[in-house]
């Protein structure tokens, strides 16, 4: 176990723990905060793995934007408190499915990458930007349209007064 691995395990356990709490907590606001924790851990892992650019994006966009968005959502919908209020009747079944998937994936991944190792080599933001604007221009343009559509559409759908 190298120190990186130790670090990773720590981050991972915290992240996973937060995730689990997120899907089990009885209070939506707590859940949102657990989400923040979990996402931060992931971001940290990016950094640890050497994906600096991505790491910062993660922290900024997710924690900075998406979570806030979700919190707004929670406020606007005055979500109630309590397990019965937050969970439906198929918890057990869901758990089985989730564990099944986990088991399957673990088996597969172990089978495929049992002995591989990641050599940590930091990638510079410049490189990222470069390849983003050379090889990936087209997706970039397309995704911009996606964002635009999402923006306009979301406004149309969510705005209060029924237009026309």
């Amino acid at each position, binding site marked *: 176990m190298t120190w990186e691995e130790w670090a990773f395990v720590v981050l991972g356990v915290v992240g996973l723990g937060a995730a689990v709490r997120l*899907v089990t907590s009885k209070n*939506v606001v707590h859940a949102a905060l657990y989400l923040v924790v979990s996402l931060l851990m992931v971001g940290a892992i*990016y950094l640890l793995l050497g994906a600096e*650019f*991505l790491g910062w994006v993660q922290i900024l966009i997710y924690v900075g934007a998406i979570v806030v968005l979700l919190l707004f959502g929670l406020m606007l919908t005055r979500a109630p408190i309590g397990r019965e209020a*937050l969970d439906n009747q198929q918890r057990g079944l869901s758990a089985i499915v989730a564990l099944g998937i986990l088991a399957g994936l673990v088996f597969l*991944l172990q089978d495929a990458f049992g002995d591989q190792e990641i050599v940590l080599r930091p990638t510079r933001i410049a490189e990222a930007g470069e390849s983003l604007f050379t090889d990936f221009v087209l997706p970039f343009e397309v995704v911009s349209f996606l964002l635009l559509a999402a923006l306009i559409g979301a406004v149309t759908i*969510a705005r209060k007064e029924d237009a026309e």
Partner: protein
Amino acid sequence: MIRLPIVLFFSAGLFAVGVYGVLARRNAVLVLMSIELMLNAVNVNLVAFSQLLQDAAMTGQIFALFVITVAAAEVGIGLAIVILIFRNRETINVDEINLLRW
């Protein structure tokens, strides 16, 4: 140096937890959050692989970048729909929204 499986197992766990959330939570917003977990699992995978492969184009990371972007967009849409429904139905409990059936 990190052994790849550890990372992958982490992401798999994240994915599984997300799945559980999607299936078990009735509050629409929480479902959205759970989906975010799944997407993050994907991203962890992508980053890990891209670091493993060391490809100069950093395909994996860029891919992850796009996933994040799309995720943001989707969350926007999702919340819009949730709010719309809440306005009409006074609830956002997924399992109560079943006018349309069979």
